[in-house]
């Protein structure tokens, strides 16, 4: 597997991510009598793909991929439920490069008050302003998706920061990937699983519930991809309108997708054996990371109201 290069289309690179990381992401499937973590060999695969420096400009030693291409790769990570900080590292390296700083090698995590994220022991940190920072001490327990968490950092979580904004857009894209994959797994399952003499998929109640979740996920995924692609512009702009809308929309849609997925997998989907929880636990964790949908909807609403009623449509329409 060769690393990313700028000529590789977003979808081709997403395929490469899928191929290279599926064995690692799915290695955590199975009995969950242990805290999940990512193995060294998993991180080596992430590195070999060129993910950490994917978005760093070529002049600064990265692959120079466009943000839209990065979104495709991060959505692929999300669709695997990949628990490693691969997306975090890609986004934070980009943020550092954007500040003119050099991104260190190895996993990077956001050191943001109120943001508890995957926490490898050898991680470097990035502070709320997007600068390299000393790693906080210790670990903070286990995240919902079973990985060791960064410590809970003290500080205000009242306002968004560039870090929170960038990470929210990334998590939104990851949720879109995981929610789409969870619904795909569910559609496959209800076509196979027979009850009352026919496949579950033949029941209208089942069809309709999945259709509703699929529609919300389709819209939220558009929002997430657009927000991530526009990150650079939006970080320089008046506020995180797209990033906020993306975190809110994917939080809502991801919740609906996880609910539908578990409902139709029945008790089987609730077991540690069955791989659905790799996706649904990821959704439940990622919707919390760096501001959940309620936190972001209040900021978005405040921002919309501050700009005034007559600015709403121009903001939505992008001009």
């Amino acid at each position: 597997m060769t690393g990313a290069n700028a000529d590789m289309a977003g979808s081709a690179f997403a395929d490469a991510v899928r191929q290279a990381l599926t064995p690692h992401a799915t290695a955590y499937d199975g009995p969950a009598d242990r805290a999940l973590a990512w193995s060294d060999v998993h991180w080596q695969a992430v590195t070999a793909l060129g993910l950490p420096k994917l978005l760093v400009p070529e002049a600064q030693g990265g692959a120079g991929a466009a943000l839209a291409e990065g979104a495709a790769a991060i959505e692929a990570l999300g669709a695997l439920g990949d628990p490693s900080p691969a997306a975090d590292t890609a986004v934070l390296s980009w943020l550092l490069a954007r500040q003119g700083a050099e991104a260190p090698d190895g996993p990077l995590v956001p050191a943001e008050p109120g943001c508890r994220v995957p926490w490898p022991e050898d991680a470097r940190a990035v502070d709320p302003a997007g600068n390299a920072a000393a790693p906080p001490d210790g670990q903070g327990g286990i995240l919902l998706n079973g990985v060791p968490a960064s410590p809970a950092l003290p500080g205000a979580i009242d306002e968004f920061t560039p870090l929170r904004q960038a990470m929210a857009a990334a998590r939104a894209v990851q949720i879109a990937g995981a929610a789409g994959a969870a619904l795909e797994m569910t559609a496959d399952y209800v076509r196979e699983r027979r009850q009352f003499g026919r496949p579950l998929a033949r029941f209208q109640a089942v069809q309709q519930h999945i259709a509703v979740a699929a529609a919300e996920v389709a819209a939220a995924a558009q929002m997430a991809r657009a927000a991530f692609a526009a990150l650079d512009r939006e970080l320089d702009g008046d506020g995180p309108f797209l990033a906020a809308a993306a975190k809110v929309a994917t939080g809502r849609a991801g919740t609906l997708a996880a609910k539908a997925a578990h409902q139709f997998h029945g008790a089987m989907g609730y077991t540690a054996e069955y791989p659905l929880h790799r996706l649904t636990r990821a959704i439940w964790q990622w919707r919390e990371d760096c501001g959940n949908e309620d936190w972001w909807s209040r900021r978005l609403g405040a921002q919309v109201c501050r700009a005034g009623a007559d600015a709403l449509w121009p903001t939505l329409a992008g001009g």
Partner: protein
Amino acid sequence: MQFFADTPLPDLAPFAGLRAEVRAFLAEERARAGIESWVGSWEGFDRGFSTRLAQRGWLGMAIPERYGGREKGLLERYVVLEELLAGGAPVAAHWIADRQTAPLLLHFGTEEQRRQFLPRIASGEYSFAIGMSEPDSGSDLAAVRTKAAPSGNGWRIDGAKIWSSNAHRADWMIALCRTGDTGEDRHGGLSQFLIDLKAPDIAIRPIHNLAGDHHFNEVFFDGHEIPADRIVGSPGDGWRQVMSELAFERSAPDRFLSTFRLIVELVRAAGPAPDRLVAGEIGALVARLAAVRLLSIQVAGALDRGGTPNTEAALVKEVGTALEQDTPEIARRILAETSAGDRAALIEDLLAYDVLHTPSFTLRGGAREVVRGIIARGLGLR
């Protein structure tokens, strides 16, 4: 399960100048009408408005120039549509003709039909009504019974159409009629016809909705004779035609902007520094709106490329109409805590209108459950 994963979002930025022109036009129109906001959005039927819109070149935008149109792409047209709807403009006099009839005749009509009808649609002269539903055939269009039988040199129509909005004001109807047996898939034997609604032997009975408005009609055909050249396409093409029309109907901004004026006034009522609960309600609503708009733009892009994104259009309708139906409920929660100040009368009007019209949001263009069934089919569940 991903939609448009590898499709870049169509870029509407090149049309920023056009947006500004449409907004200025709407400001002039509001001044002309002496109002600060339209109430009732696209149900307003105003031929004068449609004519002035046509004069600006914003009607028949997707119709080729040789048929009197402006020969613009569907994305450029999309920008005008969403500006009109976001402004709450009274577009009903031309909406059906521009949205459905024009593409129908372009794709399936004869050269003569295109020459006769398209220039008059582009000028705002011809208003069209939809003739799909029947008393015994609502969402189940395959059950249509209105019959078109060969008669002399033409066709003889017998039956009734219902829920035809503005049929009492429109000039023409596209009527879906039975011309043969259904066949095994239930979709055969249907054809569409151009019907002159001003014909004296067509009876049009008003049906008032629960708000007291007269938009709906029942239209009766009792041996109504039409010439042979009024059939659209070939006998039996009706089902395919209707499905292609519905992709336009289901994905357009009228499937999520119906309550937009109320949202604008809610933001005004909330003021620049709302409390956190109000801010949260508004933020959640705006996030949903922003998301469905992007999906709708993707569908417009697919239509512009000549695709038939029927599943994707149904996704837009599902998410968009749910948002529209939730808007007045959210408004009630916000307004219980907020004074609307000097716009109190306007916001009351908008809220009352939306509350009374919410039932229609998930019926028009195909009932919600039918739309969900279309999505389910697209997902391979049926």
